[in-house]
């Protein structure tokens, strides 16, 4: 016996009811924008996504808070056709930003210690290895840039427009008069080659 209130804002259940508790389909709030409502509805699912990406519970809550603030800051009436996909993309972008700033502080601190299993005092690490690594990283970047030259002209063009000019797949497709799925194939080809060069 589950009773549902007539208003769409919540549901009520008698504790004595024999039916098992149901997960609510949504947790709507008064006056919230459709995206905020989508956020509240999908918060747990997005949390699982963040957890899967970070492979840890640490910081999941931070990312969700950050995401909420991003969503709440969007101008009212912004037309998002697919709120779910939009929220996942926003979340993925936040996680990418975190990875980037982790890389930046790693560079700033010269702190490769995260990836090394250093148990001794960190003072033991002198400047030389860090400097060597810096040189190696610069060489790596140079190799990747050179690797772009190995790509076919169209693949290179697609990659550069998307990566360096910030054009979306749809925009690149219409720029070059090709289909969006071709754009994705060219991107895949470019990434595969770059990954090969990076790991060689």
């Amino acid at each position, binding site marked *: 016996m589950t009773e549902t209130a007539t208003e769409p804002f919540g549901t009520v259940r008698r504790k004595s009811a024999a039916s098992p508790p149901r997960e609510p389909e949504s*947790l709507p709030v008064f006056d919230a924008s459709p995206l905020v409502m989508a956020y509240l509805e999908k918060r747990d699912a997005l949390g699982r996504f963040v957890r899967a990406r970070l492979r840890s*519970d640490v910081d999941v809550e931070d990312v969700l808070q950050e995401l909420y603030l991003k969503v709440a800051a969007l101008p009212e009436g912004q037309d998002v056709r697919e709120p779910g996909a939009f929220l996942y993309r926003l979340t993925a972008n936040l996680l990418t930003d975190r990875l980037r700033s982790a890389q930046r502080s790693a560079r700033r601190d010269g702190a490769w210690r995260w990836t090394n299993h250093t148990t001794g005092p960190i003072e033991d690490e002198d400047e030389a290895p860090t400097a060597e690594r810096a040189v190696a990283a610069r060489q790596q970047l140079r190799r*990747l840039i050179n690797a772009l030259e190995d790509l076919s002209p169209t693949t290179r063009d697609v990659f550069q427009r998307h990566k360096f000019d910030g054009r979306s797949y749809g925009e690149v497709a219409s720029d070059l008069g090709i289909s969006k799925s071709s754009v994705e194939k060219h991107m895949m080809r470019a990434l595969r080659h770059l990954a090969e060069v990076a790991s060689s």
Partner: protein
Amino acid sequence: MIAIPDDQDPAEEALVWFAALRDEDAPEAVWLAFQDWLEADPSHGLAYDDAESLWSTLDGVGQPTAANAPGPSSVPLAVSYPRSRRSVVYPAIAAAFAGLLGLGLWFQFMPMGSEVIYTADEAPRSVVLGDGSHVELNRHSTIGVRLNGRARQVHLKDGEAAFDVVHDASRPFVVSSADQRRVEVLGTAFNVVSHDHHFRVDVARGLVAVTGSGGFGLIRVPAGQGFEQVSDSRPRLLRIDPSHASDWRQGVLVYRDSDIQSVAFDLSRYFDKPVRVSPSAASLSFTGALRIDDEATMLAQLEGFVPVRVQRTASEIRLTVRDGG
């Protein structure tokens, strides 16, 4: 759609996913399938991190200044996430709250030794302590803080606060409340309510040790659990959803199949008199979200979707079951 053969290596699969998800029009179903793939094997996430790192290694390339200046130092291809980035994230969140949501914000730095009082009245308040720990004070809440070289002490005089504590093994962080209850912290995030003989701790992350009143000694409460005690009665341990431990910070109270009694307790915190549940309504449980607002508005929200009638007297607000509800 995306079809990934079974026999590929994670690195190749990660690139396929990466290329697919760069498409702004990728629908939610693709994201969910991606999540399934991530969860299927730990090597998948690592491979995807490598793809992301490869991508961001090339950030700034192609811009006029970047070709000959790729950065002062190293560009790692696989970087693990640092364990805590809170010090970066929280000021940003607090600032955004202040700017976007119109909440009060004060950054305070503590003198050593003497007690400093922080009070939040009609709006929540965010406080950064001298050790870098963050406290978000809910409305109508007061804390007193003492920091010195050996200890960090917060006295929750009344109300509710969410803590995010910087780990420092040499300086224990202790939250005490009226009735001599104590929460001892080992570097973690948790929410404490102390009001009208009702005391509750919800642990979102890490581990805390709670000393209840009435001789209920040290109880360890891990993430995902709550501790609740009314007066000196036997404490209850509750399973909680860590992601909802302090929803009030987002201006909402979220409930999943909660007793009407706990809803009433929460509401009491926001009003100047207690909200009591009459026996006729005690069997109701509620799922939904209430926006935090003034008394009339919050009670109207409650009446809007729970079959209760609200009766105000001089000393209390009483919830009785509504006919036909």
